[in-house]
């Protein structure tokens, strides 16, 4: 009996991190106790990802600057750290492009409104309000935005069999 129980407990311990890995991702929500997103006023030096998303949403012209700031932090290992592989795999990005892909999708989602201002503020408060649904919407918004960017890139790339003369 105790052997079975021990075996079950061990198996349970294997399941817990697997099933809750997704939930742990939601820990990127803001710190407890603060209701307002701290703003730096400088998109090239945002206080956090929420500040960054709000800045590019308010001023889409900051899109490139914001993306670069995010990529810089991702390269330094300051963005989502161990959870970036989950998001990179979800976005079908190779590991070496994980940060870049995530940041471009993040900025696109904010600028295009896949993730609204209300969503960004809700995401910031998600942890203290146990709002996991907003986190699910955030993942969805990233995926949708990334697919749109991929389609735009594909459309902008000239086809080798197009009218450029290579057929002749």
């Amino acid at each position, binding site marked *: 009996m105790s052997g079975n129980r021990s075996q079950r407990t061990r*198996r349970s311990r*294997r399941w*817990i991190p697997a099933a809750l890995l997704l939930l742990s991702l939601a820990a990127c929500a803001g*710190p407890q106790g603060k209701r307002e997103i701290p703003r730096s006023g400088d998109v090239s030096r945002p206080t956090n990802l929420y500040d960054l998303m709000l800045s590019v949403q308010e001023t889409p012209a900051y899109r490139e600057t914001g993306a670069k700031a995010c990529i810089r*932090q991702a390269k330094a290992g300051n963005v989502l750290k161990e959870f970036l592989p989950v*998001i990179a795999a979800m976005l*079908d990005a190779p590991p070496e492009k994980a940060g870049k892909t995530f940041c471009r999708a993040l900025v696109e989602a904010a600028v295009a409104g896949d993730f609204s201002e209300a969503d960004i503020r809700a995401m910031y408060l998600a942890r203290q309000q146990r709002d996991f649904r907003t986190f699910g919407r955030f*993942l*969805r918004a990233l995926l949708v935005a990334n697919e749109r960017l991929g389609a735009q890139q594909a459309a902008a790339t000239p086809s080798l069999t197009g009218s450029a003369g290579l057929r002749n």
Partner: protein
Amino acid sequence: MGQRNLRSTAVALALWSCSITAAASAEQIAEATFDDKMLALIAAVDSGSIETGDAVTQCVGNFAAESKTEKLRDVIAGFLGVPREAAFETGCGAVIRLLDTGEFSADDLRQLIEGKNARSKAVLSGQLLRALYFKHEAGA
């Protein structure tokens, strides 16, 4: 982004992960049963010994019987854009169809549950999310 803010985010992340695990440990025995049921279901779908509809029903039943999966219900509802009441049925339906069509292998799903390499499981989690999204969108 400020170092202090990043440090507090990292601490919050670690604390939160620990609190989830601690809360889960109180129900480890019940969860082991859930674990066994899910692995058996994956094996049954993989061997073709269960009808798709029955597999979805069983999968939904397994999740619904677990109180801790309520958070996961919310994540799935938000991710797939469905009401939370329909989250398990939608998610289970997509997973079973992925297994049926071989778009996501039973071995990968088992690895996600039983694997010991955190990085491999992180990648598999991301791949499963992606596959779930597209399967759901294709069937919606």
